[in-house]
């Protein structure tokens, strides 16, 4: 556990790296980098955002790494390149924060299914495993109960998480990981929970992008880097209105996810 009192007066900019956005970024997940950058800038904290394309070396000295959602083929290619580079592994060893969305979360786990359904080795940075199940693809609004973000410093309350999910696999959290929340509407990990947290590595099925619709999650990640004291309050009026609307829509099943009768039985 590091002291945060000095980290609010960093002499260098917070560095954020978007990994392979052309492979893992089909889903507006690039917005997560924008949200993090602006929430630092608006508070007068310098930020540097780098994009690392596939084939280029992954720096191991950044503060925060973003891994987006993607399609089956590019997901496998991204895994191969990250495994070869080892930069992300070294960064995680040094305590860097990682936010991995959907396919990004799946490849950071121990194992995940490829396009043919065959199980492949993941990067092992998140204690979880993703499997293909004989259930329909989970597509629709995802809403959770109030989320608890467990860090070395303690537990941070994030309020309900809201987003949109779209995935075929289901993710089983391992014994050394925490989940973020329980699912209220939607599918999430597939066992009633949503999200996987192993140390400073956070995985979630939330698109939307996740941090645009969940500013407290964004600030919790930034708090790990600059200390929570540095995170003065911001005008989140626009996002408060959006959250209220989306939470209502999810509860009213305005955009009801497609579910089979088997899912209905399983839930009852």
């Amino acid at each position, binding site marked *: 556990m590091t002291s945060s009192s000095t980290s609010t007066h960093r002499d260098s900019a917070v560095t954020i790296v978007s990994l392979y956005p052309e492979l893992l970024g089909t889903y507006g997940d690039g*917005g997560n980098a924008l949200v993090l950058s602006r929430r630092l800038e608006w508070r007068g904290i310098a930020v540097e955002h780098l994009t690392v394309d*596939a084939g280029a070396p992954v720096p191991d000295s950044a503060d925060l790494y973003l891994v987006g959602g993607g399609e*089956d*083929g590019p997901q*496998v290619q991204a895994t191969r390149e990250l495994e070869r580079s080892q930069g992300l592994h070294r960064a995680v060893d040094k305590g860097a924060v990682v936010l991995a969305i959907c396919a990004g979360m799946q490849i950071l786990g121990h194992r995940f299914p490829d396009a043919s359904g065959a199980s492949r080795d993941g990067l092992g940075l998140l204690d979880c495993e993703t499997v293909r199940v004989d259930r329909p693809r989970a597509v629709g609004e995802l809403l959770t109960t109030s989320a608890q973000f467990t860090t070395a410093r303690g537990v941070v309350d994030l309020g309900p998480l809201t987003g949109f999910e779209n995935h075929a696999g289901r993710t089983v959290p391992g014994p050394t990981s925490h989940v973020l929340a329980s699912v209220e509407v939607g599918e999430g990990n597939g066992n009633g929970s949503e999200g996987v947290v192993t140390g400073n590595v956070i995985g979630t099925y939330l698109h939307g992008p996740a941090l*645009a619709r969940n500013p407290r999650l964004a600030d919790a990640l930034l708090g790990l880097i600059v200390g929570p004291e540095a995170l003065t309050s911001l005008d989140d009026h*626009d996002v408060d209105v959006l959250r209220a609307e989306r939470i209502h829509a999810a509860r009213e099943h305005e955009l009801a996810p497609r579910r089979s009768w088997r899912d209905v039985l399983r839930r009852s």
Partner: protein
Amino acid sequence: MHFGTGSVIGGRVSLLIDSSLLAKLTANRDVAIVSATNGKTTTTKLLSTALSAERPVVSNWLGANMTPGIVAALAASPANETAVLEVDERWVDSVLRDTNANTVVLLNLSRDQLDRTQEVRKLAERWRQALTATPPRTVIANADDPLVTWAALAAPKVVWIATGQEWTADAAGCPACSGRIDFTDSDWSCSSCDLRRPAIDVSVSNETITIDGREFRSPLALPGRVNRVNAAFALAASSEMGVSLTAAFDALDDITEVAGRYRVADINGTKIRLLLAKNPAGWHEALELLEGPTTPLVIAINARIADGHDPSWLWDVDYERVGSRLVIAIGERRHDLAVRFRYGNINHAVAENLDAALELVRASAEFDPTVPVDVASNYTAFQDHLQRVGGVL
């Protein structure tokens, strides 16, 4: 719009009775298919118009682009009339199989309604299989879209169009081998297999279209580079189908709008121009067409079934290009837009509907009544606005 709905239902009922109806309706026709995620309605209209210079043509260019809508459009026309069919990207295989189309025009594949169509690469694979199973005489294809290129290479003859497509974010992974595709200014190739940009047959510049070694001044009243590209596809296809280029060029002169796109209309004394943009690739083009550097802009986003339920893609659009102008967010997902604009440091407001948005526009210091206010919308929001200004196409 009412016409469209009724016709689709009629088409569905007919298909229930006879599933081979589309094959029968096209048995004696010269058929062209136009498909893409962006530009298929416009290109279908342009190709129909170009061919009309020399022969009667039937088309479904009102946008009913799956088999029932196509059947409905064809049922009312003489059995040997040339057909130009706009086809939903997911219906290309079945429509091609049923119609044995001679000519297939493939414009682009980009992410669009991902919660519905899943993955663009799978679409490219389906197109490739369709062209293998039912080879058309000629494919007119986008040489700057690796997904389209890979699909079209399955066809016996391809006319390649250099579209100068700037939106390449959906094609970074090679459709053939999943390797990385390297893009340079005007070229691309896969870093790990043989797939590369093919040799060009037709090219498009700021003012001209070069086809068969002849340079033509772009004839279009429609704005923007994207429409010159659509015209190039239409001209190449009509030429392959036997219509003289000169006649085809002349025919395109009179088109000023396509199914309401680019229509200028009046709402309570305020001049507006309707723009349609459904996905990041479409917005990339639409933001290039905007009136004036400071003219207020209205953007409308819905997320109904036809739009796709997930507007996360708003974050893939470079809305920062609107500059300092005031942007009013409307539509059912206006709050998603507002959050996107907030994080883009874009000067914005939220309004209940188009009329309320235009009130805000008129109150703005930058409002100039002589310049039309652009109202850019995604699919169902666009239909709502078209109806608001008097509907009918």
